[in-house]
């Protein structure tokens, strides 16, 4: 179904539910779409799945008491039942003295985020992409594992104050781990349009890394200069967002930026912002409260500038408007920036390595987790391509290492970044960066 037709049907459904609601305030979020994923391992497709799904989130307010209920159907009886369940919750709950009301409508800019070829991609098309990755891997005598995913969805948000936002989005995402003997390499690609994803090239990148990472040598833990490729950079940004950039975390005093707005919190080379409207990301015009997306500077030249909010958190922080970063009403987290960017530099990924005397090239991290949120201390492992660099050249692959590091401080020691920014799953748009003295605290056996 074409986007405009689907969006108008969803809007009608949501508007009926809002219009006929007995609650003081009502907000309805409806999402509908298809998610298809082809998974391969050892050069064969081993899992291949698809689903047509619908999701309704109904938030009602009765006397400043809020209730939320969901359904997985767009049928009237299911939606009415969800609204009834939300009302029952609101009535049993307690009034929230600082409830600011649902937000008023704000004009949103249109984004180009939907592609018919991606929406219509068949299982055969996904198998073709998987096949291209596998062929690239085979050419280097590697085995490939990974996934090809295509998503097509529409989202509408309607509330009783007049918000009526609708949008559609497609996304094609491919990732691959190639292995050969004890070597492994990773590569990925994501885009609004499936035609923009070059699966063969992704397979080649992963395979090349796998070949080069065979017979890794053990390296002592310690402090090493590192070049982090975009997937690794994105992982740190993801966790920084959770720890630092949520308005709710700031309000509760859990954010390391609490009480430090306007202060220098990291190095001057660090500028992080969120922008759902940028064509370089997977664009989104509005958030889950229907509030418009716009560019939001979070850290500028190392100085803490702002945090992301939904409407209620914005009002509790004394702001008039939401920054456009509401999560669905089901989320206890309330708000989060989801289209992060890290400013690049003037270098290139190749030159960052070439200029390094001794250090590590890290492809990506694995199983990162938070050790100390206030100090932004994370731990995690390297994975799928970790190399020792000596005198600007890759000297040898190394066994994977565990890092334990204050990442806001570590980013402050960034002494180079690529000019080119890369879109990474999430979505995040980030450069390759070089950081001095990242702490590695352990090793493993491969």
């Amino acid at each position: 179904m074409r986007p405009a037709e689907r969006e108008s049907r969803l809007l009608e459904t949501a508007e009926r539910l809002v219009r006929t609601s007995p609650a003081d305030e009502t907000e309805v979020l409806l999402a509908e779409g298809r998610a298809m994923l082809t998974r391969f391992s050892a050069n064969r497709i081993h899992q291949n799945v698809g689903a047509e799904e619908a999701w309704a989130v109904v938030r009602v307010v009765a006397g400043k008491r809020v209730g939320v209920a969901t359904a997985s159907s767009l049928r009237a009886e299911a939606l009415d039942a969800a609204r009834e369940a939300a009302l029952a919750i609101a009535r049993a709950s307690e009034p929230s003295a600082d409830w600011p009301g649902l937000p008023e409508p704000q004009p949103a800019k249109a984004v180009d985020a939907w592609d018919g070829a991606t929406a219509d991609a068949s299982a055969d098309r996904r198998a073709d992409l998987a096949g291209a990755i596998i062929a690239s891997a085979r050419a280097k005598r590697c085995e490939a594992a990974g996934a090809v995913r295509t998503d097509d969805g529409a989202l509408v948000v309607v509330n009783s104050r007049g918000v009526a936002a609708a949008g559609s989005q497609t996304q094609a995402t491919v990732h691959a781990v190639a292995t050969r003997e004890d070597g492994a390499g990773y590569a990925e690609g994501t885009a609004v349009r499936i035609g923009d994803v070059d699966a063969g090239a992704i397979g080649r990148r992963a395979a090349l890394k796998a070949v080069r990472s065979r017979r890794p040598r053990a390296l002592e833990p310690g402090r090493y200069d590192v070049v982090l490729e975009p997937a690794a950079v994105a992982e740190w940004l993801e966790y920084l967002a959770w720890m630092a950039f949520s308005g709710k975390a700031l309000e509760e005093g859990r954010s390391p930026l609490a009480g430090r707005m306007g202060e220098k919190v990291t190095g001057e080379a660090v500028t992080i912002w969120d922008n759902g409207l940028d064509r370089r990301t997977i664009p989104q015009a509005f958030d889950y409260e229907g509030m418009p997306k716009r560019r939001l500077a979070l850290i500028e030249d190392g100085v803490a500038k702002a945090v992301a909010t939904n409407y209620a958190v914005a009002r509790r922080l004394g702001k008039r408007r939401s920054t456009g970063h509401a999560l669905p009403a089901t989320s206890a987290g309330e708000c989060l920036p989801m289209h992060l960017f890290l400013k690049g530099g003037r270098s290139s990924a190749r030159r960052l390595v070439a200029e390094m005397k001794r250090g590590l090239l890290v492809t990506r991290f694995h199983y990162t987790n938070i050790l100390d949120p206030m100090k932004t201390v994370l731990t995690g492992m390297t994975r799928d391509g970790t190399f020792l660099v000596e005198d600007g050249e890759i000297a040898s692959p190394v066994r994977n290492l565990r890092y334990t590091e204050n990442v806001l401080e570590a980013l402050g020691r960034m002494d180079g970044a690529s000019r080119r920014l890369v879109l990474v799953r999430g979505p995040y748009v980030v450069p390759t960066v070089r950081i001095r003295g990242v702490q590695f605290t352990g090793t493993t056996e491969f």
Partner: protein
Amino acid sequence: MASGKRGNGTGKAQEETGAERKGVKELAQRACEVMAGLGVGYGDVRVREDRHESIAVKNGRPEQVTADRSAGFGVRVLVDGAWGFFASHRLEHEAVEAVVGEAVEIARASARLRGEAVHLAPVAPARAQYETPTAKDPFAVPLEEKLALLTGASRAMKGPNLKLAEAFSAAYEMRQFFESTEGARIEQRIVQTGGGIAATAIGGGDLEVRSYPNSFRGNFATGGWEYVEAMNLAGEAPRVAEEAEALLAAPPCPEGKRTILLDGGQLALQVHESCGHPVELDRVLGMELSYAGDSFLTTEKLGTFRYGSEQVTIAADATVPGGLGTFGFDDEGVPAQRTPIVEAGIFVGYLTSRETAPAIGRTSSGAMRASGWNRIPLIRMTNVNLLAGQAGRLEDLVADTDDGLLMMTNRSWSIDQKRLNFQFGVEMCREIRGGRLGQMYKNANYTGLTPEFWASCDAVCGPEAWRLWGTPNCGKGEPGQTARVGHGVSPARFRGVRVGVKA
């Protein structure tokens, strides 16, 4: 065959359920007819409805209450020895043909890049009903009553630096009808409930959390609201708040190699990450390689590899009453069972599926579960339990330790993709000197390599200290799935472990 007991719904609810049940069965039967008509090698259909209620109370008032309902059906087929799966929220007879057709089309695309044809280990097609028992159906307990319990507990947590006094509960109900082209017809209803409290103290640029009975929203089990009532959340709240305050003032855990004792909550996650995941046979065979990773426990190690000391015996048991990973049949229709994993330190078994079990010459261990109607079943942990030892209660183990650290309640976890190098952070740590608990430390962690760590286990507490822990947030697969799994453990002691890793 079926175990467990029938539930205690109201007459009206049963009447409605009866009509719905008939429709569900007809839909499943129709799906199997369509699959047979299309000549699939094997096919199954799961018609499933999930309910979930989540309550969060913060600083004495309701923070968020949500009620989720999700229903649909998923069709899984083998065509030309390759898998296809498609699912729909449209629970309508008219949708069945199209959904089966999509699953078959997907399977045909899989067959283009197929390896060896999939052969399923045999299982007798079951016709059964299974239901987990509840004394108080959590969905029938009035919301006001649940909120009163949680707000009471939240208000009982006080302290000068206590910024967040949170109380949580959650309830899950899964109703599923499974039918296969082999003739299995299985109806299940599983109810799971849990809750807990957390006190967060913030000051001086530090944040310390103390939780009860476990971190990350508490502990969970199959059962009803009685499980949360028995936790005595309000009674424990003052201690939890005091400990959070005390942690803020405590020194950080010093670095070194130490003897450590793990309490039940932390040990449950240690078992989960370093034993539960690496014995999933799909991981071992590379099927999760590109996402969660594979496993160091490769198949040639089966039956011979020393995983841990003689103190370490681990079994995966989906039949333990009350376990969060307890059920009647898995999502391939294989009966719940008990599978030895580690016996006196030797690695002896995997969690398997019908597809993977033949790779080790066995039948399925019954571990395939899907997180919803819209996902395929994957090999998931059931209740992966460390069996009780002979070291008495935790107090006895402390008394038996001259010099060590007691690590309590998980705060952070990380492990490499073969499940060897791990690092866990805990909420609270206490020094042990001469068999007595002393100095409190904050921000403690420990790290190691899985087989070395389990080889260093020299004591496991006894049956009197053994209890079940629920892990409600186990992630796996693409697209992502979250499973609720269980771990029975009693506290244990490990020698020469590296602690106090600092940034």
